[in-house]
């Protein structure tokens, strides 16, 4: 009796571990094959252009709005937290650093993960369950090169551009609040911002953006590619793509920050 209980306990313990190991194996292989195929011809430039436009141009409003309000909020919070000590001049610097290092890359990536990661998973997932991916193979087209490589390249190139755009809008948001709400001197604010602007702040954001862009594209593609079971499977793939890429974005944000700034 006792032996049976121990056995079923061990089985219950082992099943998720085995499934985790299997999924990790599948994922690692998927990433390796995808990266390899990103560098192998043929390169589908038209498909890359389509993804670039979708992920980049059409994400401008959502990234702009997010970073604008983030910059505005940071300006007010910094002022209300620090004004007691008479350090209003710090506001420009805090807005600059927090927007370029953290807020623009992380918030933009989370928004793009929701917008584009989900769309990638849904599109590729639908192609999987309707046998369109099998059809690609039978027509001698490599699905990794045709579907995944253009999305990964778009993620790697578009996210840094979006973050640079977000940097400008976020700092502008802080400026607007500081000038029109907190009655700062515009020339002083701009001077403070320019004097404190350092290359490392912007490059950190851009490095993060590259990593986040890769994460969004690869997670969207992976969950879509492995989806099965019709509409429900595609729905699950979409959710998993957004949740997993969001979590990975937050984890990698910490790791990159730790590597660059903990000296």
């Amino acid at each position, binding site marked *: 009796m006792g032996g049976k209980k121990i056995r079923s306990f061990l089985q219950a313990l082992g099943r998720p571990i085995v499934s985790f190991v299997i999924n990790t194996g599948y994922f690692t292989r998927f990433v390796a094959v995808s990266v390899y195929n990103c560098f192998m011809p043929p390169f589908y430039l038209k498909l890359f252009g389509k993804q670039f436009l979708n992920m980049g141009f059409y994400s401008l409003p959502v990234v702009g709005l997010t970073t604008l309000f983030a910059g505005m909020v940071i300006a007010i919070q910094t002022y209300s937290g620090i004004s007691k000590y008479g350090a209003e001049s710090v506001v420009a610097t805090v807005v600059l650093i927090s927007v370029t290092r953290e807020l623009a890359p992380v918030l933009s990536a989370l928004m793009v993960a929701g917008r584009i990661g989900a769309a990638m998973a849904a599109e590729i997932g639908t192609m999987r369950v309707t046998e369109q991916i099998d059809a690609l*193979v039978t*027509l*001698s087209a490599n699905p990794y090169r045709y579907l995944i490589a253009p999305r990964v390249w778009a993620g790697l190139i578009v996210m840094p551009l979006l973050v640079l755009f977000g940097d400008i809008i976020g700092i502008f948001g802080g400026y607007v609040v500081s000038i029109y709400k907190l009655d700062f001197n515009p020339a002083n604010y701009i001077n403070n911002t320019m004097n404190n602007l350092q290359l490392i702040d912007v490059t950190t954001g851009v490095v993060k953006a590259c990593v986040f862009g890769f994460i969004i594209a690869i997670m969207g593609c992976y969950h879509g590619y492995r989806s099965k079971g019709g509409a429900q499977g595609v729905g699950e793939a979409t959710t998993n793509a957004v949740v997993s890429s969001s979590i990975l974005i937050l984890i990698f944000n910490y790791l990159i920050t730790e590597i660059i700034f903990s000296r």
Partner: protein
Amino acid sequence: MSENKIEIRNLYKTFGKKKVLDGVDLDVKKGESLVVIGGSGTGKSVLIKCIQGLLIPDSGSIKIDDEEVVGSHKDIHHKMGMLFQGAALFDSLSVWENVAFRLVENSSVSRSEARMEAIRVLRQVGLAPDVADLSPAELSGGMQKRVGLARAIISKPEIIFFDEPTTGLDPIMADVINDLIIESARGLGATTLTITHDMASARKIADRIAMLYQGKIIWTGTVKEMDKSDNPYLKQFINGRSHGPIAVEV
């Protein structure tokens, strides 16, 4: 050179604990139209996917033109065309781009030439040139099947696979598709392998029929031999009876 276009020996494929193919042996002769019949879930689609390299069998051998394809990295798809059950048209492309996909992606044909060729093949399968610029979603099921057929035959393949070609179509449209399958295969002199459970379709297009049951080919023969056969499994299947040796999983 063997007279077989496709030779399958001892093919095994399992998914988890489920044995889907349990030692399949099957030959398809050059220029022949072989139809594999069998109930839903008997592994017909898995068989066709193994031949095309979409699934990797656990063990066994598949030879096409005497060349082993299991474990081979050689591109064999240029010899093949496939009509999928749901047509599997790319919904991001127009009808003509679907049909001409292989020409545009894999050869030096210009887009305008590829479009002309796509329209010619669309006409061959009974579709007017004005559907060429539509999106696949705007077409009916029967029209989608025709476009799928056009896409399968445009590169003049030596082997064409048909996965449940008449499923989901009304009987008249199903017969139209059967006729198109016969015409296009004859026109190209292609070897065809069809999987279906539609017996009217099987009788019409088959030179030879093979029955798959519990992962094995349990019977092969011509349509005439099928009608005379005493095989109880085959008889139950072709007569569509719920009682007999084939137990229906409910």
